[in-house]
């Protein structure tokens, strides 16, 4: 029995007078009653546009949609505005990716949850507030009677998302659409939210349309999977079948290019490798204990007036090896990166670099030997500089390279090394995709031939298939130049793939340090165990 039937859906966005973006190019799929369907795709696949089309929320001024969306027998594409308004929130609800900005900042969550009830069920203020408290309790918010009057900014990301869910299920909808609801959350919270959704779905006999870019996430919750790429459906079917034997090369690639805890191939497969046989040669990692130590931190700390962000961190980085740093948001890992790159002063502790106290090393020399790649590919490149300028500036500042021509030649060589075309030299950052910008950032860091490269979540903002490419690139560079890496990430599988030794951070402290195979096979600290068990697929 089909609750929702999408047929021949196409969505176009008018970008400007000449360009039209074909976000969705004629797709069809079904959501059976009380089932859970996962809509999977990377950015630009058209999955969000599909969801908005179902809800009738596509922006009127620049989008056109055609096709059929049958809900309980009625074609939603033909429905009038008033009718759609009646459906939204009452029969079909939606929750979004960024709970902080999706909630109205000036109203309490009780008001916002109650609003749906007042609108669709005609409840009074008092009754809707009471019901809101019950709903907030049902979605797992602690102390709902107090939190009902709280404003969104007073809640954590997880709590905000729970509030959103409460708002969505208040009128007992038959279909809940969740658009990347956990992408912005820490992995431990993510697991809780997924469990909540599963529980609600079962308890309320609701159907769930779950949209995500992370295929491994849906292994646990989906009955059916629909895989999209560039506005088309590449594959769809029962989840069990799809995971066991994926038919489409793209699906195969999505499944394979994500580093897993089970294996560590020499190179991660990328989309272009499919369909093909892959070499399953493994890469070994680990420290023998006899490597040269290029950087050692002892009791590194950072304190602000109100809180202590890093509390006495001690670790060592060996030449040519990678030290992985894992932690959730707020653990202090980025602060450590900032301090090691000398972008922020430390409050305490000591760092020895190349045998000397790091602070005794002159600023310019230190910055030449220690470089950093940031997380946000959209922010770390000066939008007003051409790529060529971005790459030659470090050389200019440090007086490397033989004059302008020499620097230009060096920059072109760097571009080649990170697999970007020479023509990129004259272009501006905004002309490149996220993955390409990260390559530029890596090239910039490489320009000075550093001995230590700090990678602060370098692939977290990228699609899975692009991640694989970049991780391969980073590894190739390390192999070639024998750089040491401090690799920071919240993603355990990626860290296991890249690192020889792993440290786990929580609330400013390093709770466990061990060789990378060891830490995943035999975790000792309870937090490490929690992290590992929260991973999707564990």
């Amino acid at each position, binding site marked *: 029995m089909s609750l929702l039937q999408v047929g021949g859906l196409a969505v176009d966005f008018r970008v400007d007078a000449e360009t039209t973006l074909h976000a969705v190019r004629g797709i069809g799929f079904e959501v059976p009653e009380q089932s859970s369907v996962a809509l999977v795709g990377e950015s630009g696949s058209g999955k969000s546009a599909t969801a908005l089309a179902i809800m009738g929320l596509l922006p009127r001024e620049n989008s056109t949609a055609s096709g059929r969306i049958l809900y309980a027998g009625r074609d939603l594409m033909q429905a009038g505005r008033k009718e759609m308004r009646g459906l939204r929130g009452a029969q079909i609800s939606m929750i979004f990716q960024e709970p902080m900005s999706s909630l109205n900042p000036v109203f309490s969550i009780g008001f916002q949850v109650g609003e749906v009830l007042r609108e669709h069920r005609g409840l009074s203020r008092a009754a809707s507030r009471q019901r809101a408290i019950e709903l907030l309790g049902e979605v797992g918010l602690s102390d709902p009677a107090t939190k009902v009057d709280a404003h969104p900014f007073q809640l954590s990301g997880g709590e905000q998302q729970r509030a959103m869910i409460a708002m969505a299920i208040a009128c007992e909808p038959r279909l809940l659409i969740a658009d990347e609801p956990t992408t912005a959350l820490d992995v431990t919270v993510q697991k809780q939210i997924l469990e909540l959704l599963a529980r609600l779905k079962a308890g309320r006999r609701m159907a769930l349309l779950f949209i995500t870019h992370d295929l491994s996430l849906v292994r646990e919750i989906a009955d059916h999977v629909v895989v999209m790429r560039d506005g088309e459906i590449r594959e769809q079917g029962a989840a069990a079948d799809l995971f066991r034997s994926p038919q489409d090369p793209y699906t195969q690639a999505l499944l394979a290019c994500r580093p897993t805890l089970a294996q560590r191939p020499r190179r991660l497969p990328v989309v272009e490798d499919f369909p093909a046989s892959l070499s399953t040669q493994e890469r070994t990692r680990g420290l023998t204990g006899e490597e040269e130590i290029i950087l050692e931190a002892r009791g590194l700390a950072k304190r602000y007036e109100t809180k202590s962000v890093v509390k006495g961190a001690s670790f060592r980085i060996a030449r040519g090896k990678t030290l992985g740093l894992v932690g959730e948001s707020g653990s202090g890992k980025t602060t450590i990166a900032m301090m090691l790159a000398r972008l922020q002063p430390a409050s305490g502790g000591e760092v020895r670099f190349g045998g000397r106290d790091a602070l005794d090393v002159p600023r310019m020399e230190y910055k030449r030997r220690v470089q*950093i790649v940031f997380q946000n590919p959209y922010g770390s490149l000066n939008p007003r500089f051409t790529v060529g300028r971005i790459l030659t500036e470090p050389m200019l*500042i440090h007086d490397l390279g033989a004059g302008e021509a020499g620097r230009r030649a060096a920059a072109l060589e760097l571009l080649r090394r990170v697999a970007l075309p020479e023509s990129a030299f004259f272009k501006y950052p905004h002309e490149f995709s996220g993955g390409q910008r990260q390559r530029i950032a890596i090239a910039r860091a490489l320009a000075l031939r550093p001995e230590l490269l700090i990678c602060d979540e370098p692939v977290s903002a990228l699609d899975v298939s692009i991640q694989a490419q970049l991780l391969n690139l980073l590894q190739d560079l390390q192999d070639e130049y024998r750089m040491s890496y401090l690799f920071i990430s919240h993603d355990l599988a990626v860290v296991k793939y890249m690192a020889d030794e792993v440290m786990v951070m929580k609330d400013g402290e390093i709770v466990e340090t061990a060789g990378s195979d060891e830490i995943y096979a035999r975790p000792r600290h309870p937090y490490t165990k929690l992290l590992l068990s929260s991973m999707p697929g564990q």
Partner: protein
Amino acid sequence: MFLAVTAASAAGWIVRDWGAEAGVSYAPPGFLGAQTRSSASVERDRGTAGKQDDYGIVDPLAPDLAEIAKTLSGRSSSQARAPTLAFGGDKWGRDVLKKAVKGTQTSLFVGLAAALLATFLGTLLGAQAGYYGGWVDDVLNWFYGVFTSIPYLLLVLAIAAVLNEKGATTVILILGLTGWTGIFRLVRAEYLKHRVREYVLAADAVGASGMRRMFVHILPNVSHVILVQLSLHVVAFIKLEVILSFLGFGVGVDTVSWGSMLAESATELLLGKWWQLAAATLAMALLVTAFSLFTDALRDALDPRLK
């Protein structure tokens, strides 16, 4: 959008050119006009006559005075005194149209110069305050607080009252040295925002110095805000100069300004002569609107979010 920019700038440029050209050709008060000596021959054409105000008394010395005037100004007697002018004449018979156009030149000059001064000051101080923070910020904020505690018009008038000196330079200095506050606040906010952006951190990571980061890296990313502010301030200063000239504190008597035109038209209205008011208003509206549209188009064109 591009067309709008071109159109707006074209409109702006046309008026500017006009002003410059007419300004060059405008002779110092030649007192041309329909100045006649007896009421009998006064033209009273509705709407286009120059105003005159003798009371029908024949001036016995008039012919001799006219002779002297002619000799002094060295003009040929064939220079006729037009009974009507395209947009009418003012109290002394000066061509209103030419005045309006010449006023453009005054306004543009004063507005632009003052805006440049204010923008330069505001940007320099704002960058220092936003980037360095600390005591530099505190001191500059104190300055800002002092200047903004006094409503702008009041401050300008107070300074004008004290200086009691007229002239374009004075006006430019007054406006420029007091009008930097808005730009200061915006530039400071921008620098505060950009200071922690990753591309600035990245510049620090490759070894760029503070000065370099401030002016080579951040400034180009802030320039769109500054340019728009410059444009806005030109408009604001033009309007202020008009008010100052109206009240008598603006440019000197020998320079034409729309403000003085408006001042004259205040009394003229009561006599039913509306054309100087109309001319000044129209000219001002044209220039300011063109400039405003230009600013809007500029803002849209430079908005990095659209990239």
